[in-house]
């Protein structure tokens, strides 16, 4: 019999706000927190708008590390982790056994890296402050998290583009199910950096207007920043200590397109396999809601619709589906984690989440798009993430019984 893995704590920071209450209030109200970028001059790019987490300056809970030496990425990560651990009843009385830290990020401490490089271009590499790089490398944030929390264990940092967060959660789920650990701190984080903004701009992937997933007139994505952390625990272990169980992680699947360095395979065949693997892994439940990757690029949304049609057949057009990216932006390495958390909240509150800015259905994306928040009986959710380079990852979450 497979061990069951449950979600016992969540922590989240997005442009909606800090913490699950603030985020949930805005998600269920169908509000957008996309605003003009303030952390760099975006006037020269296709758009000036993004889901910048303006409400978040730094993590006030940090005790054991030097705050000013940390990149914004670490602040986002550590704050979300403290939220999740508190929610799980594991802070301040910390876990006293080895944990698995499984995280996804595309950029690591890129803001520090940008600062260093700018300084190097003015002063020279020999004179730019090395201290700016103390939190640049993408694995540093995990080590700093363990150090701050006073924990030991293994850590893995997945950098599979936009699928990173879901990969990290999926790996943590499988590890706990296999009995490797009783606890995992998993999820993803990424900051809003000019490097990434310019990068997606160069690919013509940014929308000059609004993020409109699955809409016939969609014209690109809107970037965002944030972090999403889930504390996973083996079911028996959680019950024994009287933890509140939020929901269960029941299935995970992953594949790769091997098609193009940035564009997805339009057929959606490999993505459909990831979806099917996740559902089979979960014991073939009926899916009540699909939290789509839905970036609002022409390519992704068409591919995702094809993938869902392959995986579900005619039912694909019936299952309520939405993307929350119009509300908070595409959080890259954090996207899968934040979307998993929104799926947990959807299950807990029996509410289908809205897909904003959807006005004209695309006949090539024949899906049942949820346009406004709707009360519904939600037992099981499928959450998809598809990344550059063809990374496909799907996770199934369900109400705990």
């Amino acid at each position, binding site marked *: 019999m497979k061990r069951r893995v449950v979600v016992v704590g969540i922590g989240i920071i997005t442009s909606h706000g800090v913490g699950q209450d603030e985020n949930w209030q805005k998600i269920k109200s169908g509000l957008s927190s996309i605003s003009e970028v303030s952390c760099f001059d975006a006037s020269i790019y296709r758009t000036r708008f993004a889901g910048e987490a303006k409400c978040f300056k730094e993590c006030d809970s940090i005790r054991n590390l030097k705050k000013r030496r940390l990149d914004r990425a670490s602040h986002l990560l550590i704050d979300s982790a403290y939220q999740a651990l508190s929610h799980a009843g594991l802070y301040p009385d910390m876990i006293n056994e080895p944990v698995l830290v499984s995280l996804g990020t595309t950029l690591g401490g890129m803001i520090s890296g940008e600062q260093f490089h700018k300084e190097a271009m003015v002063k020279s590499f020999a004179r730019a402050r090395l201290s700016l790089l103390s939190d640049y490398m993408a694995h540093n944030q995990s080590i700093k998290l363990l150090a701050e929390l006073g924990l030991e264990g293994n850590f893995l*940092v997945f950098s599979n583009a936009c699928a990173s967060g879901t990969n990290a959660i999926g790996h943590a789920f499988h590890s706990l199910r296999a009995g490797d650990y009783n606890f995992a701190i998993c999820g993803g984080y990424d900051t809003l950096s000019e490097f990434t903004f310019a990068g997606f701009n160069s690919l013509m992937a940014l929308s000059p207007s609004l993020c409109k997933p699955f809409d016939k007139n969609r014209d690109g994505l809107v970037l965002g920043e944030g972090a999403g952390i889930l504390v996973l625990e083996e079911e028996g272990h959680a019950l024994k200590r009287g933890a509140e169980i939020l929901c269960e992680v029941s299935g995970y699947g992953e594949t790769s397109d091997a098609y193009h360095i940035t564009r997805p395979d339009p057929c959606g065949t490999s993505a459909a396999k990831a979806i099917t693997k996740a559902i089979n892994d979960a014991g073939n439940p009926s899916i009540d809601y699909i939290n789509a990757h839905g970036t609002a690029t022409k390519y992704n949304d068409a591919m995702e619709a094809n993938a869902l049609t392959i995986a579900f057949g005619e039912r694909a057009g019936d299952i309520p589906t939405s993307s929350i990216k119009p509300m908070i932006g595409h959080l890259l390495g954090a996207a899968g984690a934040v979307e998993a958390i929104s799926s947990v909240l959807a299950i807990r509150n029996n509410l289908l989440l809205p897909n904003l800015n959807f006005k004209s259905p695309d006949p090539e994306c024949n899906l049942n798009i949820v346009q406004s928040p709707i009360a519904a009986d939600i037992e099981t959710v499928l959450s998809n993430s598809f990344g550059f380079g063809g990374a496909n990852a799907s996770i199934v979450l369900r109400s705990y019984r």
Partner: protein
Amino acid sequence: MSRVLVTGVGVVSPIASGNDLFAKALLEGVLPRFDKRIESVSGAYYAAADRSDIHRQLSDRSLRRAADVSKYAIAAVKMALDDAGMHAVDSDNTALVVGVTNGPLAYTQQFHHSIVAGYPADASPFLFSDSVLNAVASNCSLLYKIKGPVHTLVCGRAASLKSLMLAVSLLKKGEVKRALVVASEEISEIAFSCYTRMGVSNMSEGAAALMLTVEDVGGLNQPYCEILSSSSYCMPGDQIGALDVVLSKCFGDAGMTSNDIDMVLYDSDGVLPPEIKGAVARSVMERTGNSFAVNALWHIVASCMLFKDVKIAEAILGHYSSGNLKNIVVASSENSGAASAAVLRRA
């Protein structure tokens, strides 16, 4: 449960690229030439990857835009596939796990330069898409049509051993029948400058690849060795403590003690816990230079060659009189407190 075997290897290094040439270089005691410099970094030199034999693996036009770090990986993967006797990859049943420390930093630097210099609109999208951390994995999976799980792990020096662990886990779960484990690094101005200032020396670049296969797949070339066990741990700030934990776990899982180990190949800044007694401990980094995540895979490739030809052990160690080279530990650790290890047993 079926054993996980190393059935093919590939290597791009400063002393040689290509398995036979690498083995020959180890045997002949060839040392890397630290003769490459970057103008903005005075007084420091690195050892460049030997590109003399890798061009035939890089004939695909699409690779022209790829960064060196991707090219090295692609060449190493081709060598590993050839070594394993595989002319084509079973797409859906093959995983690819790539470990990197720095990734395509040269392209990152170039792309960012155009932003800082004030002409971001002119920045090439190719520089961006090939500068992301998973560009190496993406290029390999594209070229070799790998459609199973494809991952990039960014975990410092231990990235390649963690990649090995993830690959073994995927194989043992039955997700796939084969897995490629790859590590690759390139020298860039920004990385070379910073590491030099931090006191890191003898830097080099290159790549290595392993083909792992579960035993029951059948039709295998003579495997090099079995991956008996592997472990990874982090005790922030306690390098020795973390090494102790991983070695204990590895020995425990392999059903052995430290007395059963014939050799330790390590990348640990000379740090080893005292419990490794009686085992001969070396690093091949004096032959290959320091290429961060690649070091551990170079150690595994060297181990595979040692298992085949004990004279290589003599060449590396100076003297090795026993032909009973059976169990090798490959270990990696950093002063951040992260450590990883794997136990290999001759097949």
